[in-house]
Every structure is written in structure tokens, then in C-alpha cells.
């Protein structure tokens, strides 16, 4: 990949950020929704300590829903407001995919940070191996960004796309959820460390596979050859 390719992809990502920061309502909605989800989950426990498996599971469910609801916008909003064709005319498919995915990763990192920190705070959750939690979440966020970017591009021109993106993304993400929960549980309770790191590596393997496959699929469907 040459430098102009890189600049173009950065151009797409920067366009997304600029537009996002000028109209912060969407970003704020995502953050408030994520906080609301975490608070609702915490409220169900009302001060009682959650078992590590349950805590890890709830954290990932909150991340998954926050991610799917906010990342879907990357392509769905583009075709909803009618600007998708501009990108189809102006850019190479791989540039669009990577630009959007980088933006999705940045957005999701913000959301995941807020979700995780507020979750740990509300649930008074001691984390035995913070590094493991961090790396598994980072891998999960990357895989989530790539997957949802791809699925939302697949359905961005379909009917009922906003609801549909959840339906088509979630089953794809369930294996990731299983890996993330396994790593999260080990990280929180500090037991079965080796298994935890394996699951953590699994989230990164998932990311690797997603980003190896997704740009090619995207190029095949994004515009006419």
C-alpha cells in the first residue's frame, strides 16, 4: 500500500470525525445509551457483588449493544442521508473500508472506555489482571469495529436497515462474545490465567480474520466494477 492510499484512507476517517464532532448529538446519544445500559445492569444487582462470570458477561453484552447501535451508523447513515454515492464515485473501495473501520475503531474505543470504567465503578468490580482485561477488550473492540463496518455496508441499501443491522451483526459477534467473556472472567477473578490469555489471543485472531476477509468482500459489493 502506497502513501497516497494511506492518505486517502485517513481522509475518509477524518471526514467521519469532522462530521461527528460538528454534530455531536449522535456521539452523545451513543454515550448516554451506553451509560444507561451499564447503569440498568448495575441497578439489577443493586450493590450486591456480581460473580466474575456474570460480571464479564454483562460487560460484554453492554459493549456489544453499545457497539452495534453506534457503529451501524458508519454506512447506514451514509446511505440514509444520500451521500453514499459520493464515496462510491470519489474513492477506491479499500480506502472507504479502512477509513470507515478506523473511524469505527476510534468511536468504539471511546464508547468502550466509558462503558468499562463506569461498569467497574458501579459494580465495585476488582480486576485481578487489568492487562488481560485491557487486551481482550482492545481485541474485541477491533473485531467489533471490523465486523459491524462490514455488515452495515452489506445492508446499507436495504429496507429497514437500522433494525436489520443488529439482527445480522449479533450472531456474527456471538463467538467473539464467548472469547471475550472467557478472558474477562479470568481477568476479573485472577484464576485460569493461561486460558484467559488464550481467549484474549482468540479475540485478536478474530480481528485478524475479520480484517483479512472484510476488505475483499467489501470491494465485491460496494460499487459496480
Amino acid at each position, binding site marked *: 500500500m502506497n502513501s497516497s492510499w494511506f492518505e486517502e484512507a485517513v481522509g475518509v476517517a477524518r471526514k467521519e470525525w469532522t462530521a461527528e464532532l460538528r454534530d455531536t448529538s449522535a456521539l452523545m446519544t451513543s454515550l448516554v445509551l451506553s451509560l444507561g445500559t451499564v447503569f440498568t445492569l448495575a441497578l439489577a444487582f443493586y450493590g450486591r457483588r456480581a460473580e466474575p462470570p456474570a460480571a464479564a458477561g454483562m460487560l460484554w453484552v453492554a459493549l456489544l449493544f453499545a457497539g452495534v447501535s453506534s457503529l451501524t451508523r458508519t454506512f447506514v447513515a451514509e446511505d440514509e442521508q444520500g451521500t453514499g454515492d459520493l464515496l462510491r464515485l470519489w474513492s477506491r473501495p479499500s480506502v472507504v473500508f479502512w477509513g470507515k473501520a478506523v473511524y469505527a475503531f476510534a468511536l468504539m474505543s471511546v464508547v468502550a472506555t466509558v462503558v468499562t470504567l463506569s461498569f467497574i465503578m458501579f459494580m465495585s468490580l476488582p480486576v485481578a489482571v487489568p492487562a488481560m482485561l485491557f487486551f481482550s477488550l482492545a481485541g474485541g473492540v477491533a473485531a467489533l469495529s471490523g465486523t459491524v463496518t462490514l455488515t452495515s455496508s452489506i445492508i446499507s441499501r436495504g*429496507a429497514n436497515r437500522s433494525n436489520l443491522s443488529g439482527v445480522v451483526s449479533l450472531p456474527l459477534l456471538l463467538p467473539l462474545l464467548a472469547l471475550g467473556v472467557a478472558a474477562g472472567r479470568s481477568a476479573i477473578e485472577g484464576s485460569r490465567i493461561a486460558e484467559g490469555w488464550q481467549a484474549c489471543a482468540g479475540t485478536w485472531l478474530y480481528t485478524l480474520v475479520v480484517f483479512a476477509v472484510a476488505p475483499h468482500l467489501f470491494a465485491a459489493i460496494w460499487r459496480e466494477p
Partner: protein
Amino acid sequence: MNNGSGLLHIPKWLLMLAIAAMTVFYFAVPPAVGFMEPELARVVLFHLPCAFGCTVYVLLAAGFSLAYLVKKETIWEHRAAAASAVSLVLAIGTMTTGILFSKVQWGEWWHWDPKQTAFLIVLLLLAAYFMVRMAFDETVAKARAAAAYSVVTLLPVLFLIFVFPRLPGVSEKSLHPQDTVQSGKFSPEYKAGYLGLFALLLLFSTWLYRMHVKIAVLEEKDKFDDGNLETSDGSTPSSRVVRPVSLRE
């Protein structure tokens, strides 16, 4: 393979006959040993072939979808859609027999058995595939989106069917007998039963699959050929053709 509609009738009747014979055999198999309800364990003979068949057709569907994305020929889209439909039917068959078996033999409808859980996600992915199809009414856009989604689902499907149930820490939680099928711990009657049913089910589902493809091709042909029909006075009945006018210079 694509023609011979007259010849198709004989294999069809043979297939029916074989299914009848298999049904009799199904009840002739002696009750399995080592189950809570040995008489009712026979559902395995149907459950296993459904699961195998579903796997075969899920893989075929992803392969056909990939072929569509590469070749952009409509026939691959018809094949992918038909294979997905057949695999959905088989998946529902697997799930239903599995849940029945689970209740009767293990005491609960749902046991969070890794294989059962993994298969439910496969079922969700298949359902999502059809949701994608339903969201598009324009045929090419539908074909492309569905094909892309089908290829995306291949990786989780492979993971869920082949890797996840065998993972250390997961496999020992399974109530499914370990490697009974591979290591041949089935009694000879059972082995003959599930292999025979598997062969029959493959034939039967291939028949369904071929019909599905044929119908799609005929529907397509019907839509594409209407403009070429000639009326008795030799004109074409379709008024929606393009007419260039007043070409200046």
C-alpha cells in the same frame, strides 16, 4: 445433470421407496443401550443425519455465494439461495430433534450443551441470511448482499460447528457423547441406520435443492423472456422497450 426431466421420475420413486424402507428399519433397530429412554433414543438416527446434511449445505451455500461474488452469474445466486433454504430446513430439523432428545434423555429442554448452543447460533446466522434477503427487492442488490453475508457467516459457522465444541474446557461440559461417531462406538444397527438415513437425507435434500433452483431459474426466465414473445400480428407485446428518436447529425 441439468436436463433429463423424464428420467427424473424413476429415481424419485426409488427415493420414496427407500424412505419407506428406512422408516420400517427405523423401528426395527433394537433399543439403544445406556440411555434413560432407550426406545426413544432412535431420534438420534434422524438427528445426526440432519446435522451432517445441514453442515454440508451450509458449506455449499457459502461456496456458491463466493462463486456468485466472483463470477456474477445469476445461477450461483439461485444455487446459494436454494442451498441456504435446504440447510435452514435441516437446521430446524436438527434443533427440534435435539431439543426433544435433550428433554427425554437429559431431563431438560435446554441444557447449554456446547453443541446445542453452537448450533443455535448457526440457526440464528441462517435466519439472519434470510432477513438480509428480505430487505432488498432489487434482484442484483439482493443477490450481492446475501452472497456477501453468506460468505461472512462461513467463518463463525466453521468455528461453531468444528472448533468450539472440541475446545478444551468446553468439550468436557458437553452431554453429547465424545466422538461416538468417529470412533464407531455405535452398534452396527445404529451405524447402518444413521449412515443409511444420512445417504437418503442427502438424496432427498438434493432433490429439494434442485427443485428450488429450477423454480428460481424458471421464474427468472419468465421475467426476462416476456419481451421476446411475439403476438399473432408479429409485434412484440411489451411496450417498455427503448426507442431512440431524432438522432441529430
